[in-house]
């Protein structure tokens, strides 16, 4: 592997991740078989649950929204050669940022509260990624370890605040009061009803539109701006970046902040869109699955949106599936994510090498 594995670019961005996912699913199918259920039947139930009804599609896209945010967060860091495992913590802090705005300002009309709350979520998420970035640049501690530690720090900080400071007085569960209606991001079914279009109710809210906008923004940023060029240069070859006069430290800080802001936007979907209050563990693993999404989507916004929809299907279909087949719980999805990370990430060569072999043979016979 000292010589890079040569394959056409289209195959690298489409064929290889698709094969990785297929292998991951085959292994997952074996697991389902192992616990005594029929994997084909499970797959059919899963797809029906995810796409078989308007409500199911709504839920699928609602889950996908979370994955788009966390997937983009991991991807932008990848482009700068950074590994941000702190999505969970950044999302948690994003929730705190949104909640602080809502708790203090939700007497104001929606057109002031909502933008401020979204900015609050982004700012706190950005801060929680910026500090590890800063510590790497200025003090030499690696972002991977620091972001892991920051996940736990965010969790304990928010528990403390919810229990002792901003929690609803007299409530047994650690959560804030419900925000006023002005701080609620409309559901898609509400928004469309305004225009007279009726669709089934689901938690899908306007965050989905924000997620698509964020994807477009990242696409433009990474491939069509000077900053994006600098980010990719740093990620590709820090030495070349230094020779070109690009400050690696500055790019690291900016990229980490963007990454954290994106992860913080998870809170826009969950807190402003659905829960209407801050509660514990709303990030529930989305931050980590974002790594699977980014790897599968080859760190490209289009790939990430597609991968997010796939994981949204798994989440929604998996929930339905666990009603029909109680033995196949939603933990299956966590295992599948792990397999996808393994085959699309760490064991990538296992799939790319045979693919490269096939292409080499095709080229030889063609020539």
């Amino acid at each position: 592997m000292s010589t890079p594995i040569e394959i056409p670019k289209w195959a690298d961005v489409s064929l290889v991740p698709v094969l990785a996912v297929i292998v991951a699913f085959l292994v997952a199918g074996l697991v389902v078989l192992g616990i005594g259920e029929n994997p084909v039947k499970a797959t059919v139930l899963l797809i029906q649950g995810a796409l078989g009804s308007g409500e199911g599609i709504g839920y699928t896209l609602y889950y996908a929204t979370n994955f788009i945010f966390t997937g983009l967060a991991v991807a932008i860091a990848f482009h700068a050669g950074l590994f941000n495992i702190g999505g969970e913590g950044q999302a948690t802090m994003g929730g705190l940022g949104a909640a602080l705005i809502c708790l203090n300002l939700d007497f104001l009309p929606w057109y002031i509260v909502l933008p401020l709350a979204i900015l609050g979520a982004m700012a706190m998420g950005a801060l929680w990624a910026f500090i590890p970035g800063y510590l790497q640049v200025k003090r030499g501690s690696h972002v991977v370890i620091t972001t892991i530690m920051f996940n736990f720090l965010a969790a304990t900080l928010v528990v403390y605040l919810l229990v002792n400071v901003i929690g609803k007085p007299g409530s047994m569960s650690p959560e804030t009061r419900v925000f006023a209606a002005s701080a609620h991001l409309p559901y898609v079914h509400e928004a469309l009803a305004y225009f007279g279009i009726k669709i089934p109710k689901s938690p899908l809210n306007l965050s989905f539109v924000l997620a698509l906008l964020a994807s477009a923004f990242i696409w433009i940023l990474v491939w069509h701006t000077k900053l994006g060029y600098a980010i990719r240069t740093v990620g590709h070859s820090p030495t070349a970046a230094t020779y070109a006069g690009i400050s690696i430290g500055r790019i690291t800080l900016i990229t980490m902040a963007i990454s954290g802001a994106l992860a913080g936007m998870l809170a826009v979907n969950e807190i402003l869109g659905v829960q209407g209050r801050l509660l514990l563990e709303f990030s529930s693993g989305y931050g980590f699955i974002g790594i699977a999404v980014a790897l599968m989507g080859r760190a490209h916004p289009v790939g990430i949106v597609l991968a997010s929809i796939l994981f949204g299907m798994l989440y929604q279909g998996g929930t339905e599936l666990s009603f029909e087949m109680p033995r196949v719980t939603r933990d299956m999805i966590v295992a599948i994510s792990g397999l996808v990370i393994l085959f699309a990430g760490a064991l990538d060569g296992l799939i790319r090498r045979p693919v490269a072999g096939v292409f080499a043979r095709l080229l030889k016979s063609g020539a």
Partner: protein
Amino acid sequence: MEIYATLIAILESGLRLCVPLVFACLAGLWSERSGVVDIGLEGKMLVAAFASAAAAEATNSALIGLGAGIIASIGFALIHGFAAISQRGNQIVSGVAINMLAAGLTALVGNAWYAQGGRTPPLEGDARFQPLTWPGAEAIDHIPIIGPIYAHLISGHSALAYCALVATILSAFVLRRTRFGLRIRAVGENPAAVDTAGVSVIRLRYSAVIIAGILCGFAGSYLALGQAAGFLTNMTAGKGFIALAALIFAKWRAWPALWACFLFGLLDAVAIRLQGVIVPGIGQIPVQAIQALPYLMTVILLAGFIGKAIPPKASGIPYVKER
């Protein structure tokens, strides 16, 4: 005297809580000293906890449980080794995958097998590692000062807890005083030099990863068969990451690893003890502040504000033989 009894109780509980940390931390030590970064300690502990509980439940033998835990953990360690050493994949990515795979699979299979929400049936008797009472512990418990130390701190732990101490002694000795240990350390600093000397980098790194697997097997089995009575979903609850923090805190050395783990175990014990307690003059101490301390101290240490923690030079970098 009552304060003394409380102190002993906290120390005792700190000792119990630090046992899995010590095993996991030593696992990380072996792996990272050989140049393989391991953030999958958590996942390996979790599969070991599940496998040990399942096997102990089936056979009613804690020893068979331990064996199953070790085998399961080695299995996951080999996946990581294959990805990191043979495939030269990204070691962080592989570690994250191991953690997620373990969290998902144990909960899924646990639920499918036992239908108790992911937990195994409660274990008792021979299926667990019972506390060992040393000779005369009960007899001298009432002697002031020395009695409780002997009865509660030295005696009264499960066999695995003493194994943790043995594992530390062995790790420190082998890594520092033997040829194998020297080679492991060398391969984590300068694999090319080891290769030039005609020693296989791949074989050394695989052995280190397998040793890490064995140690994580002990850690997980202790959780399920010693500390608790059976497996609970996600029962490691971040212990693998605390162990990682302790490893950094110990600057990748065996004896300091033991002390760092004891410190973090003690903090945990203090946090449990202080839950809801009002300290005279200070008021209620937020438990979360104490729970956050290990992470916070690690961040501060890594940033070089107190001393400097420098990882093995080649850790995280796949070795590519020059052609």
